[in-house]
């Protein structure tokens, strides 16, 4: 649980020594095969077909691992009902793309006769959309299989577009679309027999999903196809271009949605008796508010990450005004609000989004809030309660009156078996008790004043504002961001060998005034990001990974697969 603090100490030493260390040449861990998230799927459809095409349907739930769906994505498969959904969504997309309303606008060509096959036009369509969906140029085999199927369908149905739908759906359900598969080539270095380098195309996808939460654009694909992306100078140039792109907002939002557990909003409900003003619009606005707040500070203003915990400026809607007790002029839409100086409400920890998510449907929960702060923002893990406790022994006094959460949770600090974990969660959670189960400010509970003072790892605080400041000042908070962002970028936990890189990233983050984009850049251009280690137990005939090591990088499309040996043997 204390591991980050040793990392922080190491970072501190590095800084004190005044060494502006270079990226340690650390090789990345295992390759990842990641299932697209729902948002990534939507972005891919938008990039391929434009925003008029609607993605209607439900996706399989993500699977959170070590606090991140990005790690679960490298572990989940597709279930039969999940596949059924993908196919249904894919057909709906193909129907829209070939519809009389959109076909002329979206397709690169039109058939000579709409009631007959047209191989040339089919090929154009397949190559255009296939490159975008599969994130690589198509091979001759890819194209021929689809032309053949489309032609047969067009002939039997006497409808060119019916054939095109067959081809489009086949790409929309292809595993290479639904999964991002990393491919790499053996590149052993002294002492590192299993060292791999990502192919240009895999590196392009890994970068664009990390920074933009979507596939590579044409420019990036072109650089990758020329085989230039793995050159350090070109890579740095492309990363800088991507960091300056408007898509960066999508990437930053996706990371924070993940690490802040915002998918919990999908099933958030509150008791209407306890919270009569709560509604779905309010919850959606609260989620959006925090994301806009983060993007505004970290992307638009390029502010110090730590200011998130102390800032009083935040976007507001009229619906949220009712929670924050702030009059909002805008009837519909967003305006910037500044929280009054005399209020305990300051920074990220006081946002309605957290108050709502980390609470029960009918009341706040200092424990749930404390667990969230420890796990998501400090990268500490809080064990589950031991199974064999008889909880009723702690609530045996049926006549006791507990007016505040602090009273109710008192047992946690007096019983040794509870105290072990709750001493970590409850004091900081109780520091946020000024915010009820939907985030409304309160100073009393059941008529009794709420005491929000406490101790956060040796630092006293009097209430939410000082707790926020304590988070801003705690080196674990920035070290945790570094760790989570790196894991998010590579889709797995760091290996032991990658730990020196995390220490370097922490030091560099500090030197760059805790600018998020600087940290993203450091990760994206690091040696570890573009290399990998082959699984040692793989039998030699097994290819380590995907993306046919075809000649895609040079633009030609040779036969797939057969030439692709990785994982030990030469290509």
């Amino acid at each position, binding site marked *: 649980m204390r591991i980050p603090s040793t990392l922080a100490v190491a970072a501190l030493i590095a800084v004190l020594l005044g060494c502006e260390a270079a990226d340690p040449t650390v090789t990345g861990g295992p390759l990842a095969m990641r299932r697209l998230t729902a948002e990534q799927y939507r972005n891919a459809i938008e990039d391929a077909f434009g925003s008029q095409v609607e993605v209607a349907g439900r996706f*399989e739930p993500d699977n959170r691992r070590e606090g991140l769906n990005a790690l679960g994505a490298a572990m989940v498969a597709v279930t039969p009902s999940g596949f059924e959904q993908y196919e249904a969504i894919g057909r709906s997309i193909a129907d829209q793309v070939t519809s009389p309303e959109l076909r002329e606008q979206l397709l690169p060509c039109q058939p000579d006769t709409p009631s007959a096959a047209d191989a040339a036009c089919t090929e154009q369509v397949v190559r255009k959309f296939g490159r975008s969906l599969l994130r690589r140029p198509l091979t001759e085999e890819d194209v021929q299989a689809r032309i053949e199927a489309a032609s047969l369908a067009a002939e039997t149905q006497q409808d060119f577009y019916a054939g095109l739908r067959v081809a489009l759906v086949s790409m929309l359900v292809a595993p290479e679309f639904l999964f991002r598969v990393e491919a790499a080539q053996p590149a052993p270095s002294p002492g590192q027999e299993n060292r791999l380098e990502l192919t240009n195309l895999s590196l392009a996808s890994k970068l664009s999903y990390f920074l933009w939460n979507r596939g590579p654009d044409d420019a990036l694909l072109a650089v990758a196809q020329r085989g230039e992306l793995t050159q350090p100078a070109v890579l740095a140039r492309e990363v800088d271009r991507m960091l300056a792109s408007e898509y960066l907002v999508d990437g930053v939002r996706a990371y924070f949605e993940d690490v802040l557990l915002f998918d919990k909003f999908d099933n958030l409900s509150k008791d209407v008796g306890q919270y009569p003003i709560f509604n779905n619009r309010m919850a959606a606005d609260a989620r959006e508010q925090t994301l806009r707040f983060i993007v505004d500070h970290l992307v638009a203003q390029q502010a110090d990450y730590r200011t998130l915990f102390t800032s009083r400026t935040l976007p507001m809607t009229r619906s949220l005004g009712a929670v924050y007790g702030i009059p909002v002029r805008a009837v519909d839409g967003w305006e910037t609000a500044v929280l009054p100086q005399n209020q305990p409400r300051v920074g990220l920890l006081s946002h309605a989004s957290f108050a709502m998510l980390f609470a029960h449907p009918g009341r706040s929960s200092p424990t749930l809030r404390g667990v969230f702060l420890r796990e998501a923002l400090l990268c500490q893990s809080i064990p589950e309660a031991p*199974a064999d406790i008889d909880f009723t022994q702690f609530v045996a006094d049926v006549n006791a009156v507990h007016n505040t959460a602090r009273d109710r949770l008192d047992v946690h600090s007096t019983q040794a078996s509870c105290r072990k974990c709750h001493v970590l969660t409850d004091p900081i959670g109780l520091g946020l008790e000024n915010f009820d189960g939907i985030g409304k400010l309160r100073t009393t509970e059941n008529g009794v004043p709420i005491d929000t003072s406490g101790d956060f790892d040796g630092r006293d605080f009097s209430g939410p504002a000082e707790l926020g400041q304590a988070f801003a000042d705690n080196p674990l908070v920035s070290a945790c961001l570094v760790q989570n962002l790196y894991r998010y970028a590579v889709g797995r936990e760091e290996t032991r060998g990658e730990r020196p890189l995390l220490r370097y990233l922490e030091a560099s983050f500090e030197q760059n005034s805790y600018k998020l984009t600087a940290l993203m850049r450091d990760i994206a251009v690091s040696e570890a990001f573009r290399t990998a280690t082959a699984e040692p137990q793989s039998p030699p005939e097994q290819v380590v990974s995907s993306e046919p090591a075809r000649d895609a990088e040079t633009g030609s499309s040779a036969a797939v697969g057969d030439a692709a040996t990785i994982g030990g043997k030469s290509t």
Partner: protein
Amino acid sequence: MSTTGIGKGVNRRRFLRGTLGGAAVSVGLPFLDVFLNTNGDAMAATGAPLPRRFGTWFFGCGMNPERWNPATVGAQWELTPELLPIESVRDRINILSGYSVLLNGEANQVHRTGVFGALCGGAPKSADTVEGPTLDVLVSDAIGTRTRFRSLEMAATGNPRHSNSLRDVSSVNPAEPSALGLYTRIFGPGFSDPNAAEFTPDPGVLLRQSSLSIVAEDRKRLERMLGQSDRARLDQYFTGLRQLEQQLELQLQKPPPLEACSIPGAPVDMPLNTEIGNVMANHALMAQTLALALACDQTRVFNMQFSDRASSLRMPGTTDTHHTLTHEEPRDATLGYQPNATAFVLKSMEAWTTFVQALDAIPEGDGTLLDNCLVMAHSETSEANSHSVVGLPFMTAGRAGGRLRTGLHVSGVGESASRVGLTMQQAMGLNVAQWGTDQNKTDRPITEILT
């Protein structure tokens, strides 16, 4: 594992140029004669026996053993305070009390060990692992491959994550969260009424098969690209693809007539949350829709979650959930139990009764649909306050096509819950002599309830 019977171009051509003129296929037999043979246990038209179905029904946070477990075993057991709601179906169900997940030295993973121990035959070894597959997947591998849906998962709580059904930890079968969604999936596009006088195959089905065949043909190339664990995930993907191919093949054939099958109206769209009234209503609608899906032989395996593990059910206007009540509500000194938490136990038993009645309401063969079903109800704890996995509450409903007796209480104090799972598999006709791992391994089914 073979993915598809479709080869390269030649077969695709066969598909596309096949029977497909879009012509209707008329049913030759007089409508009423096509149904049952004279014994009432098989279809006259095909001679096929009536399908047997298997399902699980889950409720979170258990019960109070001293108020739920009947005092005597056999057929004469007396209703207990927490089993009172099931009175009307007591002859249609069995109570299996006392069976436990034996921990085998592992820690009790709160709200997980009791459910996955029972469904997988062994205590999970850590907080994020499960040694799948779960019982329902074992059964669906055996009996679920000939229907349109391999299995159907449902969550009355409106949350697709509320599912215990998994092949392994990387593929948890998501639940259908709404009754309307469930209805649309079953009776919407792609449904073919088995009792319709005419059958017209949909040419669109052939086009869909063609798309899938392109992907299936690419499988070997993809496999070569992947390491071992990722290849297993690709296998799961192709299992899903194969399942859809089978669904599509079925849609090209005239389904055999089914007397019990009728098409319900669409259920109303419900608010989806954990407030008890909504959950009860959503559950009842789902149960009715599922019953007809079974009667129409759209699936033979199902999993219903009435509530989630660590039940998040709540009463309107209150500050606590079922789960928090089990830990925080004082035990009433005179009653000797937690009254507010226990109210949810009674609601769960009420819902279970509703579910059993929904299956029992549809005549099939000489009896009802329920006679040809086997449903296993269970929870992740006995007493939730202490997360106890000792003496878990199990119940079964239905006779599995005559393979099970009902109306009985069997006590398995000290025995592994694997005995329940083994019994389910054998009653469903699986060729399994022993099941479970380590302490939970058993070769002894519960013979008291087997015929």
